[in-house]
């Protein structure tokens, strides 16, 4: 009995020492989570937005094709955000609209409205890594950032775009993600994402996303006005240009249900 107590005492002491050491020197996972949490916190509370965007698709030889669209977004505090995208160009898809309810843990919900069919269809698919409108962006690249979707590791500090950045490794928790991991450059000054490298399932670099022309809204929230996605494997690229973004449009859940999808023009 005495020995048992002594052993217990020793192990308790050891544990205590260990935790003290950890507290002094956070692990890479803890540091990664702290930085990513800070990133999320700094971008919380923006409410709703309405944006118009231009997407320029380029093939390996630099030939271009343009897409125009508008996106309404509603922040959902305890889950993924809701987004409604309305396509304006090319003309033959004008009025088509796509509604997403991002979920932190479960499968996202998606609906599509095609004016030529004049019916709303729910699309049930695990594919999040397919191309968004033929671009180099995948759906999962554009959906809202939720901490629950990833595990994090802090890797190092590095200068990028002239900013001191943290480099964080993000590992998707969804087995149907197209990526094995991502490297994210987050600047220390405002916790904005400056660059993301996407690695495919066999661990090879697939795409690199860089953010440009950050502007601040409501004295708090930063939005990049230009995003460049370059596919390292097929040399195709896509520019996503944010033409205009308006905050506080008074959007509610009713603007993001299936009926709203049919009304959207």
């Amino acid at each position, binding site marked *: 009995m005495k020995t048992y107590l002594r052993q217990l005492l020793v192990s308790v002491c050891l544990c205590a020492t260990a935790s003290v050491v950890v507290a002094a020197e956070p692990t890479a996972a803890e540091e990664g989570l702290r930085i990513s949490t800070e990133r999320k916190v700094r971008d919380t509370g923006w409410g709703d937005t309405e944006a118009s965007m231009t997407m320029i698709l380029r093939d390996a030889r630099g030939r271009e094709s343009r897409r125009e669209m508008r996106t309404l977004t509603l922040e959902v505090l305890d889950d993924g955000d809701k987004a409604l995208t309305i396509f304006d160009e*090319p003309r*033959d898809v004008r009025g088509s609209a796509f509604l997403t309810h991002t979920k932190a843990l479960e499968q996202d919900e*998606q609906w599509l409205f095609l004016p030529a069919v004049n*019916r709303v269809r729910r699309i049930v*698919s695990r594919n999040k890594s397919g*191309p968004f409108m033929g671009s180099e962006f995948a759906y999962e690249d554009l959906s809202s950032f939720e901490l629950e979707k990833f595990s994090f590791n802090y890797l190092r500090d590095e200068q990028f775009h002239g900013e001191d950045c943290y480099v964080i490794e993000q590992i998707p928790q969804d087995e149907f993600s197209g990526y094995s991991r991502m490297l994210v450059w987050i600047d220390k000054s405002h916790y904005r994402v400056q660059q993301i490298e996407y690695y495919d*399932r*066999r661990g090879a670099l697939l795409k690199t996303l860089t953010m440009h022309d950050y502007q601040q809204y409501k004295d708090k929230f930063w939005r990049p006005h230009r995003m460049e996605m370059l596919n390292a494997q*097929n040399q195709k690229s896509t520019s996503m240009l944010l033409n205009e973004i308006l905050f506080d449009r008074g959007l509610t859940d009713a603007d993001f249900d299936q009926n709203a999808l049919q009304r959207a023009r």
Partner: protein
Amino acid sequence: MQQFWLNSALRHPWLTISWALLAILIMSAGMSQLYFRGDYRIFFSPDNPQMLAFEQMQNEFNKSDNILIAIAPREGDVFSPEILELIWRFTDAAWQTPYSSRVDSITNFQHTEAVDDDLLVEDLLLQPAMLDADKIAGMRQVAMSEPALYRSLVSSDGKVAAINVIVQLPEIDQNQEVVDAYEHVLALSAQFATEYPQVDFYHAGILALNYAFASEAEKDASTLVPLMFLVIVLMLLLLLRSFSAAMATVVIILVTIFSTLGIAGWLGIFLSTATVNVPTIVMTLAVADCVHVIASMQFALRQGKSKEEAIHYSMTRNLMPIFITSITTSIGFLTLNFSEVPILRDLGNMTAVGVMLACLFSVTLLPALLRLLPAKVVPVSHTANGIEKLANFVVLQHRKILPIGIILMLGLAAFAATNQVNDVAVKYFDKRTDFRQSLDFIEDNLTGTANLDFAIESQQTSGVNDPAFLTHVARFADWLEQQPEVTHVASITHVFKRLNKNMHGDDPDYYRLPEQQDLAAQYLLMYEMSLPFGLDLNNQLNLDKSATRVTATLQNLGSKELTGFEQRALAWLATEMPDYTSSAASTALMFAHIGERNMASMLKTLPFALVLISALLIISLRSWRLGVFSLIPNIMPALVGFGIWALYSGEINLGLSVVASISLGIIVDDTVHFLSKYQRGLREGQDTEGAVRYAFHSVGRALFVTTVVLMAGFAVLAMSGFRLNSDMGLLTGLIIMLALIIDLLVLPALLLRFDNKGKSNENLSTTTAG
């Protein structure tokens, strides 16, 4: 000049050897620059129109480099829980293939199903745990009716399934990239083969072809070249019967090969399926030079001359013939520069350089070496007696030999024109190679292994959504499917039809094209959204959706049939769809055209080479008359050889298209040697018969020996698993043998019959000259 050179080689052998070694070292250092290339592009020059068309199409649409793995259970079909699980696991594992961007199989096919207002898009087999009798029946039904799968990723009888791995090679070190990706897949197959011993695995695709090109070349380099070397050493020992002479020859061969490869390296020439056998050919040709030098020396030694005198005797006799024969051989190989195929040009240039180097070394380094090595008198061999008997036979029977010979020659030569050009990359590989066996299996049991891509331009942005355009494309797809050669057609119109059905609650009546442009465009938008990782529309539609690509999979046709099919399809498009522009391209089509193009250019250069070589001969013999006589033994062997080939095979590929040129350069040597000795006989005052006997006596054995060596060399080449090389070796060897027969039977018979009046002139000119 000649005296000075001989004196330095004979009096200061060490100095000669030192200079030669220095030069050899400098040249050979280039070997470090050599590298292997195995991709199919090495067969095409950068301005090849079919390759340009193909690259244009690859730029417009996605690249289609792939590895196809066929999975064939020995019993039953693939629709069993076990095999479906294997396909599922292999599909999953194949994503780890280096440079892969997409893996497709019946298990991860994106099956779309309409349930009320929901559109369900899911892998046809998401988890093997879901497999029960119902699921399997459902999978079979989808696989057998879906155009994207049926006879493409599953055979019509369900006994074979396939996994297609699309790769995007960065093309920095393409050879290594091909090896990395392909060997990864091979390792996966090997691993699954141990786990599933009842299943066979086969491999095909562009990467398999590239890998086979490279691995067969390396196999040739590691087996044929050493084998050739061994054969030559053995033959030299046997024929020269002198260890030191054989060793001297081996040294000359080695330094010639190293210098040749080194120069190729300095020039930036890479090794390929064609050039990897340059050492074998150069070795063969270098031996001929050495044999002439050594045979003459041994002849002089037998006559009681000292070693130094014997070398001197041999050199003065052989300098000119060796030089002339090397020049003619080089010309033969240099005509390959008119070939359409870059690697055949490399083969020609490297061999031409090698032949001239062999000439250089055998008149500098060889005498120096012979001077230092011990020499013994070699007794006369039996062949010499045989040669005398042959000379007697020809002299006595020439009135019979000539007509029989001419009838035989003309009779066989008549067949030469019946050969057909046929270039199919797959058939370049011998039936015993793994690649060929795999391809043949897939061809017999799953689907064709040749593709033909058609790009159809609507001429306007988003034009592919135009119902009129789609209707035409669908009709073209239908037409293709009706062609007997076609095993599978991939067309965007299939996708449109399926989506239309899905959007109408999976009603089979709606399996048809959408009737309005905006509806079609919106279907595409929806389809794009349902696509999985690594798949986009770009493999069927270009960036601004103005053009579509329709891919037909064909039985592996001969090149004539393939170009014929191409013409038929393009003619259909031109008449039925005159408002749109279309083009066709594929690697198979590139090979189908290259054979014809190459043959045409080689046939054009052949007369040029013949005239040049004959002119050289006339100048060196200083006799128009003998020049005219030389035409028959120079031209006939190739004609007769191709005639025999027509009876044996009847198909001519890239490798054979150059045989006439290179064999011409080689066989001329025999004629030069025989006629120059005949001429010397005449000059020494003998009559035609005496001069013929003299020629037999002095050069017959050497001709026999060199022909045996050359035939052995090309016979070794004939053992290659790569038919461009093996066919070239076989036919060249045959032509060289025919050349000897013609030179030793028909040519002397011709001289005996027709060269009576020339004799007196010859004597006169010699008298005046003397």
